[in-house]
């Protein structure tokens, strides 16, 4: 990849950022909703950790931090979906994808760049305020060292790439299924259940906990949270996340080439 294409993808990412930044009222509404849900969840977690201190190896402050982290990262990492995939599916369904495939750019990198731009905006626009609210009004466990925060940000970036790679596969299913509603819904369920959004994965009982911690979705919320809370070795976490990112992106490429070889484009 030359300097020129690097600039191209940077421009696409900037476009993704600007596109989401346009809807200010929607962003404010999202911040409000995330804060309300955080408020409800945080009390249920407080009750849970009241009942059993040190549940899953977290103390109460760490559990509270986990809740607000979840609300802060929900939109940025598109854990419940809602990034680019609906649009890409629609382009596949209508046949517009043919135009995209003719462009002298890489389809996967194009959408990755746009999604990174979106994620960055939603991290700043939708994530910071609920997290600040939570840290202000509830007892949280935040690290004092800058290096931990740095490691946390690296984990968030890797999480965004894994999230993209998963949703890219979801979107490509439209080449075969046309209507992606069912797949989107299943991806949403898996994302919520296996990322720690529903409940921290270290609270899951026995073998179920061990299985979900090995799945790619645990890279999304659980991994950055454990790095920030000092519960996981950052380097090991990065390797785990990067491993899933590489595998899933590679599978995405394989599926993409299979799809473009066999599929007859709709419309025309």
């Amino acid at each position: 990849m030359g300097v020129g294409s690097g600039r191209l993808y940077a421009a696409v990412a900037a476009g993704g950022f600007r596109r989401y930044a346009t809807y200010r009222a929607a962003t404010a509404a999202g911040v409000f909703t995330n804060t309300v849900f955080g408020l409800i969840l945080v009390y249920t977690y407080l009750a849970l950790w009241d009942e059993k201190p040190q549940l899953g190896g977290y103390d109460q402050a760490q559990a509270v931090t986990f809740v607000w982290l979840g609300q802060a990262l929900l939109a940025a990492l598109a854990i419940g979906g809602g990034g680019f995939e609906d649009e890409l599916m629609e382009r596949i369904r209508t046949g517009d994808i043919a135009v995209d495939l003719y462009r002298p750019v890489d389809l996967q990198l194009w959408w990755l760049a746009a999604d990174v731009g979106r994620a960055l905006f939603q991290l700043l626009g939708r994530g910071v305020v609920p997290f600040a609210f939570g840290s202000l009004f509830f007892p949280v466990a935040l690290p004092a060292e800058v290096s931990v925060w740095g490691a946390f940000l690296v984990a968030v970036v890797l999480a965004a790439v894994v999230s993209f790679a998963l949703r890219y596969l979801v979107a490509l299913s439209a080449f075969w299924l046309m209507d992606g509603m069912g797949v989107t819904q299943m991806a949403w369920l898996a994302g919520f259940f296996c990322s720690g959004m529903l409940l921290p994965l270290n609270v899951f009982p026995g073998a179920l906990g061990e299985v979900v911690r090995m799945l790619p979705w645990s890279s999304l919320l659980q991994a950055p949270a454990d790095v920030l809370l000092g519960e996981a070795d950052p380097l090991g976490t990065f390797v785990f996340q990067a491993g899933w990112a590489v595998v899933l992106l590679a599978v995405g490429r394989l599926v993409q080439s299979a799809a473009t070889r066999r599929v007859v484009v709709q419309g025309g």
Partner: protein
Amino acid sequence: MAETAHEGGRTEPPRRVAEGLRAYRLIAAMWIRSTMAYRTSFALTTFGNFAATALDFVAILLMFSRVDALGGWPLAEVAFLYGVSGVCFGLADLAIGSMERLGRRVRDGTLDTLLVRPAPVLAQVAADRFALRRLGRVAQGVLVLGYALTVVDVDWTAAKLLLMPVMLLSGAGIFCAVFVAAAAFQFVAQDASEVSNAFTYGGTTMLQYPPTVFALDLVSGVTFVMPLAFVNWLPASYVLDRPYPLGLPQWVAFAPPLVAVACCALAGLAWRAGLRTYRSTGS
């Protein structure tokens, strides 16, 4: 424009209500027929609806795999709260949940089409894209409530038995009022329509947990400001012989029907005010 739509039934309120219900029935029936053209898709989306809702209960089950009580309430009683909240919200969502989409119609101006039709706008918006797949949510609530009723320890009396259907219907009424008020808000909110999720989905999520879990300010808020506590917390406290939140007197357990009627009346006023501010889109 809004005025012409009103004139059709301004004469007498009872006739207007009957007219609205008839329009609602016709539109909903049309959407059901259209849904049934794709039966497999209907079955899959209904199951998806069921599974998505069940996720909340899975979270509660996972919690109870590690503890015996939450806020002093055992699993059977939390399941009771969850079941009642789920059925009430599910019924409201099935009946008028499509009103969520009003914001889109306001933004793109397609609400105009509904205003010129000779039927009450509220009925048309409520039945718009009526989604039978939402039965999945109701079914999930019914299942959990059924489970709760078999395991919960209650000395059933005539009053408690009578309170059960009253609780479910009033709760559905209260959630319907929330949906209508949220839709009225969308006339002014436009892009900010996601705010209503905090009250609809946020409300039902909160009611799935015992009131003892939450801070007193929050409980006061959902009792006196937005009276969601009357959906299940207060009547369930009577059925389960639990102390009443905020030290309220016992009679509040029987107030849900009155609260539901009052909420619906207020939501109706909010709807009228909202509809009056509608100015369509430019050019």
